[in-house]
């Protein structure tokens, strides 16, 4: 596993207190109580800090699940 992917996963694991299995099942927005609108902005902050990027509003709205998020961070030059 790349260091970036580790960071990407950790942002979810630390923000939502989930395990890796949940991510592998493609964890989605609103599928767990922790990933609500508050949790969402916390996750965005964690990812922006981890990769030192600044996402646009459209991408934050489109960031609907674990796998979709990978495509989105890739747009900011993050190689997972």
């Amino acid at each position, binding site marked *: 596993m790349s260091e970036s992917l580790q960071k990407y996963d950790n942002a979810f694991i630390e923000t939502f207190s989930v395990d890796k299995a949940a991510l592998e099942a493609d964890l989605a927005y609103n599928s767990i*109580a922790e990933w609500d609108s508050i949790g969402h902005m916390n996750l965005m902050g964690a990812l922006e800090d981890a990769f030192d990027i*600044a996402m*646009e509003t459209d991408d934050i709205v489109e960031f609907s699940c674990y796998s979709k998020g990978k495509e989105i961070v890739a747009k900011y030059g993050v190689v997972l």
Partner: protein
Amino acid sequence: MAELQDLLALAPFALSEADKQPLFAAALGQLTRHHRDHCADYARILDVLGFDADVPHAVEDVPFLPARLFKLRRLQSVAEDQIHKVLTSSGTSGQAPSRIVLDAATASLQSKILTRIVGDFIGKARLPMLIVDGPGTVKNRNAFSARAAGILGFSIFGRNPTYALNDDMELDWDNLDRFLAAHGDGPVLMFGFTFMVWQCFVQALQKMGRRLNLDQAVLIHGGGWKKLADQAVDDAAFKAGLAQVGGISRVHNYYGMVEQTGSIFMQCEAGNLHCPVFSDIVIRDAHLTPLPDGQRGLVQLVSLLPKSYPGHVLLSEDEGTIIGTDDCPCGRPGKTFTIHGRAAMAEIRGCSDTYGGK
């Protein structure tokens, strides 16, 4: 739902009023039929009014519900197991809060449309954000207030959110100093509720004789002028106060109802509230007859966003005036209007009564 989907995919100010109206009326018809078919209470209302949703209607002819109906009754066009969140309004004293039933699709649409509307005024880049409220406001996830929903909805536009107030609604100087040291010399986004911005920020700074350097800030504020109108503070006085305490010159008021979250009307650089392609406004007189531009009356708001509850055509309790159509100096097409504040209680009762007998 072709017209509905087409309109919702557009940029907020993509169409002139003449190009928008036929599309909007068709989209509204689709949405009205959706609610008729999925909400038995709503179907009964249309039935009682003798409204046939299967034939085309002008926007102003589609029946409006008084917004306060959502305080009295929970109306939904979605199955129980599809409910994602029930939004409650903060509830003015003595009134029950509104209950707005959201499914995931409607909630997501609200975020997307809000993003597009606000982005047209402040751009896409997310700026460091100073929230003129206390951190406790959004903490209680179970009692989700309209104020929390507003803060969270607008948080999408900011980064590194910092709360300017503590939970006693006093200026939090540790937070403010840290924020200003890190971002004070660059563009920042400020967000808050109109009355809180005035009382807890502008007036608090004036009392202390402090001035902050926020020359490059853009402030978005909303939530109503009622308390400020009582103090005779209007839009111009509000802006003058912000300029004085922080050099803040880019100020956008927004108007909207919790019953139509996401569907907001932003104040442009020329000071007018703008109607995007996703919504419409009708002004009505005391007999609920539509009024021409320039005349003051009750505000009816129409939004294409509410799909999980029949709140697409609502009569508010506010008074407003349509200023013009396709002629705002800022260049955005469509209707522009201004809001004068709440109508007197007697008139509001009159409306509900009249509505029932219409």
